[in-house]
């Protein structure tokens, strides 16, 4: 099956989808996360419980929603609730996974989606937290998807919009965040990362096909822990590619990019 061609976004969607297991619950936003959730539902995890932050609970999403509140998010849902209800349930511990993107990430998985440069005189104002800070605070395992470069993998993010492990081991709990949460995986166009359980620093987990550890390090402004043995990321199967292209995002709004 090595002749299957896929683009970077399709690979990211597949890698993210394979992390989700049947019977897990996942809090999703728009774009790639919902694609990963839909792909998991249509392949190995039909019982995946999906939450959309604006209130949809347990939908069987037929086609890519454009907005977290759009009608497709409540297709065959078991409940249509509110932001307050959904966020409360996540705070009370019902969401296993949550997906986040970011413009910047640091070695502890802290994320910036608020501003580049000084907050009060930004060189670029970004959308802000939205539900991101809440997802990062509440879910048990946070999955981060972003484009990796020296500009996005930075020693210190310009603004901590959403908490990773903050300053290291114990920092989340000391700040008052629910215990045991935090970043779980980081997925980029080069590799998948996890976090060292002792240091809480980002560590290489698997390389995408054709990528070397050197590539990974060259595209980061902080040193990445590279273990002796590193796996290879899964690549999309023919079935996954067909689902992504023909069923989930036929007009290529996200995967076409």
């Amino acid at each position, binding site marked *: 099956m090595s002749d299957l061609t896929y683009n970077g976004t399709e690979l990211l969607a597949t890698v993210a989808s394979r992390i989700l297991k049947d019977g897990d619950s996942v809090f999703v936003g728009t774009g790639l996360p919902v694609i990963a959730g839909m792909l998991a539902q249509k392949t190995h995890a039909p019982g995946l419980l999906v939450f959309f932050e604006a209130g949809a609970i347990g939908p069987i999403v037929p086609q890519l929603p454009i*907005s977290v509140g759009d009608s497709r998010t409540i297709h065959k849902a078991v409940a*249509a609730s*509110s932001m307050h209800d959904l966020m409360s349930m996540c705070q009370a511990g019902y969401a296993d996974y949550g997906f986040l993107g970011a413009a910047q990430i640091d070695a502890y998985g802290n994320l910036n989606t608020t501003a580049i440069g000084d907050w009060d005189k930004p060189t670029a*104002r970004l959308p802000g937290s939205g*539900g991101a800070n809440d997802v990062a*605070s509440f879910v048990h395992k946070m999955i981060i998807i972003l484009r990796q470069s020296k500009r996005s993998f930075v020693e210190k993010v310009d603004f*901590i919009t959403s908490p990773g492990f903050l300053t290291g081991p114990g920092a989340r709990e*000391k700040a*008052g965040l629910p215990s045991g949460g935090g970043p779980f995986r980081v997925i980029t166009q080069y590799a998948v990362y996890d976090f060292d359980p002792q240091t809480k620093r980002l560590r290489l987990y698997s390389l995408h096909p054709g990528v070397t550890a050197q590539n990974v390090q060259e595209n980061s402004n902080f040193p990445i822990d590279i273990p002796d043995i590193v796996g290879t990321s899964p690549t999309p199967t023919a079935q996954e590619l067909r689902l992504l292209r023909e069923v989930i995002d036929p007009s290529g709004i996200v995967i076409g990019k």
Partner: protein
Amino acid sequence: MSEKHVRILDEGIAPLIQPFDLDEFRAHNRAKEKALVDKRMSESEAISKFVTEGCYVGIELYGTVRCPMSLTRELIRKGYKKLRGVGQGVFEADLLAAANCMKELDWTYIGLEVYGVSSSLRRGVESGYIERVVEWSNAAIAWRFKAAAMGVPFVPARTMLGTDTFKYSSAKAIECPFTGKPVALIPALVLDVGIIHVHRADKHGNCQIDGITGFAAEMAAASKNVIISAEEIVDTDEIRKAPDQTVIPYYLVDAVIHAPFGSHPGEMGGLYERDEEHIKNYFDNSSDPTKTKDYLDKWIYGVGSHEEYLRLVGTDRLESLRIKER
């Protein structure tokens, strides 16, 4: 008996954009009309009657879903320049920024989701026209409304802690007097005016929403005055047939506007899809201030009412957006 103190561990640097007085809020709510009176009026009448320059407004929606766009366009047409408000928005917040209507913002997310950050908004903040921004998360905004709706000064929460989102907010963190652990206090937000679009309302302001309700119930109860636009005005008997569907009861509401396709170019769950071409066209042109102004001139300043706006969009276009079956 020795005096006990709750320890404040940390506090955001921003003063509240909208300080609150809950006893004043109670007195205001006590004086609100409780009789079933007819509150129907036009967008123009409602905005003129309840929105004063400099007041604090909230526009409720989610993404581009159920946006009170006919009321947003009327706000812009009226020419307010110094409104304060809460930005949990997408297209509507962008238009308000493009038209320089806002000076101060409690901000959680302003962007166009899959399309990214809009240039109008960037210009508003980066140029300094928007003078004050206070950061929040979505849950924090929901719970700021919830606190006001409950008539309490704050809701304790386990979000925003340890981050710059907290630092640039008006939240505080205390040592919880029950557990001894740090907890964030999310302050109440009492709005001067809440603007909400619903599927159906009666003339008294009883409102029903199909599908997810976003921030609607909390924001309505947190607002001193509520302006409702509705796709359909129904008899009160219809409301009474399904009282469990009522998200906002009438006494919270001050104005009811009949606005079919009131969310256009956003969508309305179960009724019509969003007008992707319209939104994309706006977004693509938003990087150019002249083209943004052209948009405002054509679609907002150039029309006098929602009816005229719908005529400009065209019946065929609107009909093509209608959801045929559920």
